[in-house]
C-alpha cells in the first residue's frame, strides 16, 4: 500500500514538474482549470448515465471518458489558440463544464455523489493497480516527450511566431504540448483530486518562473516540491484527522513561495 502511494507520488511529481513549468511558460494555466472542470463534468455525466441505465462504472470507463474529453477540449483550445483567443475559449468551456458538472451532480443519488466528491478532494490512498499502471504509462510517455522535445517546447512557449518560421512542426508540437498538459491534469484529478491538481500544476510553475531559476532547475525543483508535498501530506494525515488534499495544497504553496520571496528579498 505504502509502496503504491510512494510510486504514484513519484510519477505525479515527475510529470507535474514538467507540466507546471510548461504551463507557466506557455501561459496555459487556464487550460489546466478548463480540462480539470471538463473532467469533472464528464465524470458527472458518466455517473448520471450509469444511474439511469443501471450499470456499474469501472475505472476503465472513467479513464476512457477522461481521455476522450481531454482530447476534445485540448483540440478546441489548441485550434482557437491559432486565432489568439485561447483565454476566451478556455473561459467559455470552463464556465460551461462547471455548470454541467453542478447540474448532473445534483441529479445523482447519495452514493454516487460521494464518489464524485472523491474527485474533488482526492483519494491517493485508494489507488488501484489499474490506476497505477495507467498513471505509470502516461507518466513515462509524457516525460519522454517532454525531455525529447525540450528545446522545441521551450521555443514554442517563448516565441511561437519564430518557431512557426523555422522548419520544425510548431503547430503540431503546440497541440502535443497542450495534450500533455491536459493528460497530466486528468491524471492528477483522478488520483489526487481537483483541489490538489490546481495547487501542484499551477502554483510551483507560476511562482518559480518569477524566481530567476533556469528552466531545467525550475522543472527539477517543481518536481521536488510536489513530491515532498504529496508524501508529507499523506504522512501527516495519518497522525492528524485532516484530508491530505488540504495539507498538500498548503505545503505546495509554502514551498513554492520560498524561492519567490527569496528573489524579492534579494532584489
Amino acid at each position: 500500500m505504502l509502496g503504491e502511494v510512494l510510486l504514484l507520488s513519484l510519477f505525479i511529481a515527475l510529470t507535474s514538474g514538467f507540466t507546471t513549468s510548461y504551463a507557466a511558460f506557455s501561459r496555459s494555466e487556464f487550460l489546466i482549470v478548463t480540462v480539470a472542470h471538463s473532467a469533472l463534468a464528464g465524470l458527472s455525466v458518466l455517473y448520471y448515465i450509469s444511474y439511469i441505465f443501471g450499470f456499474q462504472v469501472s475505472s476503465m470507463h472513467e479513464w476512457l471518458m477522461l481521455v476522450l474529453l481531454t482530447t476534445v477540449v485540448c483540440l478546441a483550445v489548441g485550434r482557437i489558440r491559432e486565432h489568439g483567443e485561447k483565454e476566451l475559449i478556455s473561459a467559455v468551456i470552463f464556465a460551461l463544464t462547471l455548470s454541467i458538472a453542478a447540474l448532473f451532480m445534483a441529479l445523482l443519488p447519495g452514493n454516487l455523489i460521494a464518489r464524485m466528491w472523491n474527485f474533488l478532494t482526492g483519494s491517493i490512498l485508494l489507488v488501484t493497480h489499474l490506476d497505477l499502471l495507467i498513471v505509470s504509462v502516461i507518466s513515462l510517455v509524457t516525460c519522454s516527450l517532454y525531455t525529447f522535445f525540450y528545446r522545441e517546447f521551450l521555443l514554442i512557449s517563448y516565441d511561437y511566431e519564430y518557431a512557426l518560421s523555422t522548419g520544425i512542426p510548431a503547430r503540431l508540437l503546440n497541440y502535443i504540448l497542450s495534450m500533455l498538459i491536459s493528460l497530466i491534469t486528468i491524471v492528477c484529478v483522478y488520483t489526487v483530486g481537483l483541489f490538489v491538481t490546481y495547487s501542484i500544476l499551477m502554483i510551483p510553475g507560476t511562482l518559480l518562473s518569477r524566481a530567476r531559476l533556469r528552466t531545467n532547475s525550475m522543472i527539477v525543483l517543481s518536481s521536488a516540491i510536489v513530491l515532498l508535498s504529496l508524501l508529507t501530506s499523506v504522512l501527516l494525515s495519518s497522525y492528524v484527522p485532516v484530508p491530505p488534499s488540504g495539507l498538500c495544497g498548503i505545503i505546495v504553496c509554502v514551498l513554492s513561495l520560498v524561492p519567490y520571496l527569496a528573489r524579492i528579498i534579494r532584489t
Partner: protein
Amino acid sequence: MSIIEIRGLSAGYGRKTVLSNLNLVITKPSFVSVIGPNGAGKTTLLRVLAGLLRPRGGLVKILGVDVSKKFPSSIKVRLGYVPQRDSINYAVPVTVFDVIVSGLIDVCPAPRTVTKREVRQRACRVASALGIDDLLDSYFHELSGGLQQRVLLARALIKDPDILLLDEPLSNLDEATQQEVLKLLRHLVDKHLKTVIMVTHDLDVALEWSDLVVLISRGGARTFKPGVHEDVERLLESYPEEERKIIPSRRPYCG
C-alpha cells in the same frame, strides 16, 4: 536564378486583403529596405517570405523554389527571421545562450546531430560579432530593448542563412547601435553575399544603407535605387506626405 521572385502576390488576414498584385524580383545578394505607411503590408510581405502566411494568389519563389503552395523545410533553414519583439513571451526564463542556439533548431533538429561544444562555439562566434558575448548567461528578459534586438539578430545569424528577413530590427536601438547593426548587415551583404530584407520606418536609413528600397503602398510595391537621383526624387514624391513628416530627416537628399 532569382533570390526572390514575387509575381502578382495577394495576401491578407481573414476577409481583409493587405497585399494585392505585388511584384518584386531580387536577382543578386542585396540590402533591401521595405518601407511604407503603417498598415501598408510591410510585415505581411515579410510573413509571406518567412512562410508564416500562405499567399492567396500569385507566385512566390525563394532561391528558385516555388513556396506559394507549400513552404519546404529545405528553404526555411536557409532563411533567418527576426520578428518584432512583441511576439516574445517574457514569462519564460531563457538565457541569451538559449535564445541564440534556438536559431539552430531546424538546422539540427532532434535527434541532435551537432555536438554541444560545436553549438557553444557557434553561439560564441555570432555573439562576439554582435558584441554580446559577455551576456550569454544573462536572462533575455532582463536585457534592454537594444540588447534583446542584438540577441534576436544573433539567433537569426547563427545558422548562417542565405536570406535575412528583419522586421523593424532597429526599433528601440540608439543611433550608435543602429549604425553598428547596419554596418554588420552591410558587411553580410558585401562580404558574405547574403540578402537582407529589412522592414523599417526610417526613410533615411533605407536611403543611406540599402541597394534597393521597396515602397509598399495601397497593396502593391514600387522599387527604387537609392543611388539614383531620379529614383530618390520619385520615392520622396511617392511617399505619403503625412508619413514623411514624422520621419526625422538627418540628411537632405534632394534640393
